[in-house]
């Protein structure tokens, strides 16, 4: 009997020792850095250095938009969802998205919404900050906010006359036009108490092509109430992003 006790104590203590040596996996962080380009070229504002698929040379003046609903997903289907909206403005806001406190594991895809989902894109759906108020979508009958204001100028071939483009996207006539984007993470993102970085490449030229060749002259500068234009841009915007891990 006495011997048996000693045996049990030995087993128990070795178990305790074992578990102490086995490091438990812990939460980590992911930071996403937005990296702009225009058809693979460096993004430089106010410079007619780009040519779009429809044949116009164009410049980028201003870009303001929302990103939301960031979700990291594992192969087994478990998800980590960040219930937060990020306003981004070219040259003004920090182009990084912090995703804190991510549970351990290997994530193989990243999803997000370009714009705002239907629940958020209602009048008063975002806090009344100066930024959000400037993004309001005040058209009669519609609700919510601009998903994006992408503004610049293009030149007419031949004459070289400069005209403005205003790619303003949002919900038109109760059509929620936000874009759901899912991108695979090559080799996975392994989280265990560490901070991992992802580069989110954003090609602005994709708004003007793939699948729909966007002709500034055909669509004109006023598209907020034009659902066909909104749908064409929605399809184009879906191809504007790709990701690459920044860690070895």
């Amino acid at each position: 009997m006495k011997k048996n006790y000693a045996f049990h104590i030995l087993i128990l203590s070795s178990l305790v020792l074992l578990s102490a040596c086995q490091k438990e996996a812990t939460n980590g962080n992911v930071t996403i850095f937005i990296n702009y380009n225009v058809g693979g070229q460096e993004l430089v504002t106010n410079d007619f250095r780009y040519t779009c698929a429809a044949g116009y040379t164009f410049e980028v003046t201003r870009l303001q938009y929302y990103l939301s609903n960031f979700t990291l997903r594992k192969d087994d289907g478990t998800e980590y969802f960040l219930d937060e909206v990020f306003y981004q403005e070219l040259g003004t806001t920090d182009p990084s998205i912090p995703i804190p406190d991510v549970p351990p594991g290997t994530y193989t895809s990243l999803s997000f919404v370009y714009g705002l989902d239907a629940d958020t894109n209602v009048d008063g759906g975002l806090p009344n900050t100066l930024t959000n108020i400037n993004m309001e979508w005040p058209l009669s009958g519609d609700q919510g906010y601009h998903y994006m204001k992408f503004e610049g100028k293009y030149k007419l071939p031949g004459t070289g006359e400069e005209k403005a483009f205003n790619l303003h996207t949002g919900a038109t006539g109760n059509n929620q036009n936000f874009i759901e984007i899912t991108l695979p993470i090559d080799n996975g993102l392994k989280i265990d108490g560490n901070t991992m970085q992802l580069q989110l490449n954003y090609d602005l030229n994709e708004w003007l092509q793939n699948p729909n060749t966007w002709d500034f002259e055909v669509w004109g500068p006023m598209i907020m109430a034009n659902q066909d234009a909104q749908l064409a841009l929605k399809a184009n915007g879906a191809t504007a992003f790709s990701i690459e891990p920044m860690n070895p």
Partner: protein
Amino acid sequence: MKRTILLLGVLIWTLPYCTKEKPIDPGWEYDPTPFNLEYPDFFPILEIPADNPTTVQGVLLGRMLYYDPILHKDSTEACASCHQQAFSFSKPGNIIPHINLGWSGAFLWNGKIQGTLEDIMLFESRDFFETDLSRLQNHPDYPKRFYEAFGDKEITYEHIAKAMAQFERTMISANSKYDQYLDPDQFVFLEDEEFLGYDIFFSEKGDCFHCHGGILFTDNRFHNNGLDANPEPGLSEITGDPFDVGRFKTPTLRNIELTGPYMHDSRYETLEEVIDFYSEGLKNSPTVDPLMKNVYKGGIQLTPQEKGYLLAFLKTLTDTTYLHNPALEDPFHE
């Protein structure tokens, strides 16, 4: 023994002078009362610098300074000489109205001062009026008021700026017909032509709202709105950036009916002229804002009838209660 007592007495007598706080005059008290800034829920959140909370004492002091020519080096004029309440704290001439400036982050037409109301008020007192601090310091009343607002016996430009900023934050206009229309409890409705004007304003037809939109009727940013083919420097004077040529601060359209003449150089006497400009008079230039998307055809091309609707809507932004708000009146004539 006597010497020891004397020494002790001197020590005790001088002790208060050794502590950090100098003794204050009897009757002075630094115990500021928080001031509750009121504005509608649909207004943006008013950001207040942590080092200058709004207080009853600070607001009253700022209000007194606003109306007192003592701030001016020659005592010839006060802020209120040009910023008159009857004209929405403006005056016919090139005077920027003081209205809802608490939500602004850049001041003056060319953005010369960027930051908070404290920053612009520091400029106004120290650099524009060149306030003589000794006259405030030797005044029979102001030192006590500054002490009660900021707990400091010494009057500085920073204290003046803080008091003025506190008063400016209370200069809120939020009771126009349009505001009443937005408040479902008030059962105020727009007339047909006002509503048709609203539709022009808040759609891409007029496309006024991308710059003058939101509840403040300004985006508080800088744009070249196509006034001239060879625009004036504007913001580029401050930034040195050639892309800022011709860019001026978007003024609020609240009380616009009362604050003419219009544009940074007061070139238009009436709102009718302003609407004509946006309809047919736009001039292209390299830095004209892409939001002025109809500049290639001279403007938004409104019919005379539509111009009338737009004008009717603009007049719904007039808040006459702002002109008679007793809390903003001259405190020396109560």
